[in-house]
Each structure stands twice: as structure tokens, then as C-alpha cells.
């Protein structure tokens, strides 16, 4: 029995010794490659560590830079915030100014509308004035023409007046000559000559041709359509009537062949004399 166990132990020792020798040979064979691999891994590890350190250094540097930038940004933010507050204050001030300017603008617009309405009214008035001026200018032109016509008539009248004055002087010369002849015949030139007064006054009818008053407007003169040809003489009293109404009596003051001038006797007046009224010598 002991021999069997010893034999088994010997065989097992042999097997394990061979296995130990194989593992030791394998280690000796592959340890170079393992070493190179370990060296390479170590080198990679060192490189990685270096990169990590560089990365950390860069991170720290970037962190510092970022902190500096953050501080600068905060400073800028504070400055910007201050500027913003200032801008807000300025905006509020500008808004108040804008409101005031809006009110001014509204007021100016209202004034402008009023001024426009007034201008339109002025335009209408100006148009009317222009039309009136045109009419007045036309009327002035007409009046100038009328003045020229009147001046022409005045010149003609002056010419006629000069002729009448000349004739009057001639007649006065003749009257003087006749007065001299009367005095030579012992006749007083100032003696009133009265014509033959008819014994019976004939009924003669006429009409009032016109009425006027003297310069003092104390007496009314009328012109009638009958004269010396109708046996009307000076100081003859005529009756003026209208239909069946008695108006007044008039005394003849001047006689012409076909007309005469009479003076209304105020004490006999019973109405106003009008053109066309009847005149008669006897009712």
C-alpha cells in the first residue's frame, strides 16, 4: 500500500516538476515581449500622464483666463447695467419730452387747422374782393369814359356859353342903342309897358311840364305847356288841378310863345304840384 502511494506521489511530483519547468521556460521565453509591452505601456502611461498634466495646466490657465474674462465681463456687465440704467432714465426723460412734443404737435395741428380754415375764409374773401375790384375797375373805366364824355359836353357847353356871352354883349349893345333912341324920343326906357289885357279871359287848358324850386327853396316854380301863343300873359293867374281835385293857383312870371313859367302862390296851395297836372285859365 505504501508503495502505491509513493509511486503515485512520485508520478505527481514528476508531472508538477515538468509543469514547473514548462511554465518557467515559457516565462523565460515570453518575458522579453512582456517587458517591451510593459515598457511601451509605461511610456504610453507617462505620455498620458504628461498630457493629463498639460491638460490640467492648460485647464488651469484657461480657468484663470476665464476667471479674468469673467471678472472683465462682470465689470463690463456692471458698466453696461449702469449705462442701461442711464439709458432707461434718458428714455424716460425722452418719453416725457416726446409726450410734451406730442402735445405741442397736437396743439400746432389744431392751430394749423384753424389757420387753414381762416386762410380758406381769407381766400374766399380775397376772391370776392378781387371780383369786387374787377367790377370797381370796370365801373371806374365806365366812369372815366363818362367823365370824358362829360368833359366833352362841358367843353361844348363852354363854347356855347362863350357864344351866348358874345351874343348877350351884342344884345346889350343893341338894347343900349335902343334905350338911347327911346331917350332921344323922350320915352323913359324904365317905364313898364303893359300889353292889352283881353276883356274876357278865354279858357285855355294845358299841363304842367315840370316843377322846380328857387335857390332859397322858398318858392316853387312850374313850367306849363301853354304860352303867349295861347294868350297867356305876365301876371296872369292860372289854376292847377288834378282830375277833380284843386291843387293851387300860380301866377305867370315869364312868358314864351309855347310855354310859360309860373310861381305857385303858397297861400292857395292845397297839395303838391306834379308833372302832368292840368292847368287852366278858367274853371
Amino acid at each position, binding site marked *: 500500500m505504501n508503495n502505491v502511494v509513493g509511486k503515485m506521489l*512520485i508520478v505527481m511530483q514528476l508531472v508538477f516538476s515538468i509543469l514547473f519547468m514548462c511554465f518557467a521556460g515559457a*516565462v523565460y521565453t515570453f518575458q522579453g515581449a512582456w517587458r517591451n509591452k510593459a515598457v511601451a505601456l509605461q511610456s504610453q502611461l507617462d505620455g498620458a500622464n504628461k498630457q493629463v498634466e498639460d491638460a490640467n495646466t492648460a485647464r488651469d490657465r484657461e480657468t484663470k483666463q476665464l476667471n479674468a474674462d469673467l471678472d472683465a465681463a462682470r465689470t463690463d456687465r456692471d458698466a453696461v447695467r449702469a449705462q442701461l440704467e442711464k439709458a432707461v432714465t434718458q428714455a424716460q426723460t425722452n418719453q416725457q419730452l416726446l409726450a410734451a412734443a406730442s402735445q405741442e404737435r397736437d396743439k400746432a395741428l389744431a392751430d394749423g387747422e384753424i389757420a387753414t380754415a381762416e386762410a380758406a375764409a381769407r381766400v374766399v374773401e380775397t376772391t370776392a374782393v378781387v371780383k369786387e375790384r374787377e367790377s370797381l375797375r370796370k365801373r371806374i373805366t365806365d366812369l372815366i369814359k363818362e367823365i370824358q364824355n362829360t368833359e366833352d359836353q362841358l367843353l361844348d357847353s363852354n363854347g356855347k356859353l362863350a357864344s351866348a356871352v358874345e351874343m348877350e354883349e351884342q344884345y346889350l349893345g343893341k338894347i343900349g342903342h335902343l334905350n338911347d333912341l327911346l331917350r332921344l324920343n323922350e320915352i323913359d326906357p324904365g317905364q313898364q309897358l303893359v300889353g292889352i289885357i283881353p276883356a274876357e279871359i278865354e279858357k285855355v287848358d294845358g299841363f304842367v311840364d315840370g316843377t322846380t324850386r328857387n335857390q332859397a327853396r322858398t318858392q316853387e316854380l312850374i313850367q306849363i305847356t301853354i304860352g303867349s301863343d295861347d294868350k297867356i300873359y305876365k301876371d296872369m293867374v292860372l289854376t292847377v288841378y288834378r282830375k277833380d281835385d284843386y291843387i293851387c293857383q300860380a301866377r305867370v312870371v315869364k312868358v314864351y310863345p309855347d310855354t310859360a313859367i309860373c310861381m305857385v302862390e303858397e297861400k292857395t296851395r292845397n297839395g303838391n304840384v306834379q308833372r302832368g297836372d292840368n292847368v287852366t285859365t278858367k274853371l
Partner: protein
Amino acid sequence: MSQQNSDPTIYDGLMFVSLAAVIIGIVFLVMSLGQYGWSGPS
């Protein structure tokens, strides 16, 4: 005194082979340690 059987058996040879394998393995290990600068026990 009893006479003993002194003839080597196969198992004795296996013991020597085993001893040789162990020695060779130790040599391999020492050589491997030598690669890492191991100079042996002082």
C-alpha cells in the same frame, strides 16, 4: 541484518527526472529575474 533491495527502479529515475525539471525551472526563473536586474540573494 536483513538485506535490502538496492536496485533502482523506474520510480527512482522518475525522481531524478523530476529533480532535473525543477532545477531547469529554477534556472529559467533566475535567468528571467536576471533580465530585470535581479542579482540573487545577497
